[in-house]
């Protein structure tokens, strides 16, 4: 009995010693802990986890780029640059979950900056928290113009807002002489922020335009499309994201709108590898907006990303990944410029400086009026496929005029 007890004690002592040793070594490592950057994004339902995963991929490659190519970031004591590390926070697309996730990232992971917000609701809910924690928040893909319109010190918009998109689509549609525009927008923040704005512009611009808002969970859009058919548009603007975007294309063909009527998809869905598999001939002559075209000249960082992304995932990077990648390296550059990871200083650097991102435009956050407060504007292109199964790189650039590579095929 005694022996047993002493045996147990010995084991306990050994375990304690081991734990202490591990803890000490962990603490020693903690001194060389990388600078954590948070990615706050939807990774589980009801959020759009598909988008969230793409954003995480971009951010992780961004960290890899910072560590490999920029040699990490300088921290506040400026002795030597250290690596950055991406910490994921799942917001489930819900404001409250986003708040909890951000507080977790701040208190547990001691992040020096956060990016990745996808839902406008989440961005709006965590914006005041970012202020409270003096934490730079780079809004990667939320499109509500209220976010920049709130004029907060630590929030930086890099995504296009409804207005930018409307500008481009309006100019494109005008320059090609379309007169009747049908807009199909889903009932998410994306659709309800841009759709009505766009319709108003077309009507104000003397065109006739109708807007249909549809429920994202409803896979049967035929009745809506029959109304669209009755309207007899000469161009359809497809503002679905993911499954609804495909459904609009397929079901437009069902009611006979396609292939007669040109269709514009509002983002770069058609560059997905499954686009042709899913749509086949229907994808021919598809017009779409993109922030990127393979023939476009990328920065070195952008080239690096496309290469790495293809290596890792065997497909081209989508805008979500590109944007998150860009945000990550911009944040790192700002830290280096400030020679600090302190929120105040990094924010200051972000406002002052100009930064390299994945595209040639670069990133700068001027404190301009209204919705342009601390917002970096992305150029948007309009592309068109001209053949079935065409590679993304062979798509014609229709807009902007200075980049134009071909004519619209009807």
């Amino acid at each position, binding site marked *: 009995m005694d022996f047993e007890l002493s045996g147990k004690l010995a084991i306990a002592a050994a375990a304690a010693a081991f734990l202490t040793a591990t803890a000490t070594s962990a603490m020693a490592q903690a001194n060389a802990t990388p600078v954590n950057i948070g990615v706050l994004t939807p990774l*589980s*339902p009801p959020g759009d*986890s*598909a*988008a969230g*995963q*793409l954003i995480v991929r971009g951010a992780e490659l961004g960290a890899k780029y910072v560590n490999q190519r920029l040699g990490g970031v300088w921290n506040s004591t400026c002795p030597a640059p250290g690596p950055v590390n991406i910490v994921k926070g799942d917001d489930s697309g819900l404001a409250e979950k986003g708040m909890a996730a951000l507080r977790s990232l701040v208190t547990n992971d001691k992040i020096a900056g956060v990016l990745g917000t996808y839902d406008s609701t989440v961005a709006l809910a965590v914006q005041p928290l970012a202020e409270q924690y003096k934490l730079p928040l780079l809004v990667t893909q939320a499109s509500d113009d209220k976010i920049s319109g709130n004029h907060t010190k630590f929030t930086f918009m890099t995504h296009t807002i409804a207005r930018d998109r409307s500008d481009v689509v309006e100019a494109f549609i005008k320059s090609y002489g379309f007169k009747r525009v049908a807009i199909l927008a889903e*009932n998410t923040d994306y659709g309800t922020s841009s759709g009505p704005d766009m319709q108003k512009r077309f009507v104000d611009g003397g065109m006739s335009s109708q807007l*249909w*808002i*549809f*429920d994202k*969970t*409803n*896979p*049967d859009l*035929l*009745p*809506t499309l*029959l*109304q669209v*058919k*009755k309207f007899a548009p000469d161009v359809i603007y497809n503002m679905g994201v*993911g*499954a609804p975007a*495909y*459904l609009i294309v*397929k*079901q437009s*063909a*069902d*009611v*006979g709108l396609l292939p007669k009527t040109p269709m514009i998809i509002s983002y770069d869905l058609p560059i*997905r590898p*499954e686009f042709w*598999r*899913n*749509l*086949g001939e229907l994808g021919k002559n598809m017009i779409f907006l993109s922030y990127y075209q393979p023939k476009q000249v990328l920065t070195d960082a952008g080239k690096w990303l496309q290469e790495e992304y293809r290596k890792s995932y065997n497909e081209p990077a989508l805008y979500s990944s590109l944007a998150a990648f860009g945000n990550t390296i911009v944040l790192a550059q700002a830290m280096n410029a400030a020679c600090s990871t302190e929120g105040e200083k990094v924010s200051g650097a972000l406002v002052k400086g100009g930064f390299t991102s994945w595209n040639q435009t670069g990133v700068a956050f001027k404190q301009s009026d209204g919705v342009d407060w601390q917002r970096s504007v992305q150029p948007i292109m309009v592309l068109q496929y001209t053949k079935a199964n065409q590679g993304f790189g062979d798509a014609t650039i229709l807009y902007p005029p200075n980049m134009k590579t071909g004519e619209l095929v009807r």
Partner: protein
Amino acid sequence: MQLLLQSLTLALLNGAIYALMAMGITFIASIMRIINWSTGEFYMVGSFAHLALLTVIFPALGLTLPMAWLLSALLAMGLVFVLGMVVQRTLIAPMHRPGTQAFEYATIMTVALSVLLQNGAIMIAGPNQYSVPDYMRPILLEDLEIVLNGSRVASGLAALAIILLFYVLLYRTSLGLAFRGIAQNRLAAETAGLNLKTMDMLAFGIGTGLCAVAGALLAPVFLVHPLNGAAATMKGFEIIVIGGIGSLGGAVVAAFGLALVEGLGATFYRAELQQLYGFVFLIGFLVFRPQGLFGHRERRV
């Protein structure tokens, strides 16, 4: 006129598909007296199984059959039939312990199951949407200026055929008689010597199998992705309330009715209210005919 004709045609096709979605739920609800909240997830699993069979497994085996899509959809149904039975036996049947509220606990189990299946699919299948090749070429009715999606027609017809088969099973076989008996009076079925445990398991398998084949058949029309079952659940519930729980005829008529109401409402009034038309239709039934179209007032047992 042409618009009306086209929307009527589409409602007809949709009705068959809606009916198939609803039958699985109504069957399970009438036999086991539970709501299966994971219906939509079995629909989704069916569509993924179909996708895998048709685009990966069949080509890998070098199979090139004329109606491969139908075979694949039926195989997907069979797979989910087995999966459903396993789930029922291991997870749902044990909730019917004496002294527990069978309806509530079993329902809660299906809620947890739906969370598991949905998120499992997101984890495994990743962020993309998939489709399978069209089943048929589009059909052009030139005189009427109507184009019909071949896949929709094919899946609508297949749905009708499956409904017919199910009808034969229910009304022309002794197994079907047993199911109808259980649906009306479990005690009467038990005194007749039926093993209710086995019958419940079979019923759950058949119900989920029906949802799965709906998912499989609709793969080219409504795509394959982890969240594609949401609509099936919604339509299914609406239809079984309108048609009356346990009434197959009611489910079929309600399915066509719902497709018609939604289609006409959205085509001729406001499209964004499409889902709400169905709800209004349903609320009308709840208020004026709570037992549904062909349902009968439940007796307390």
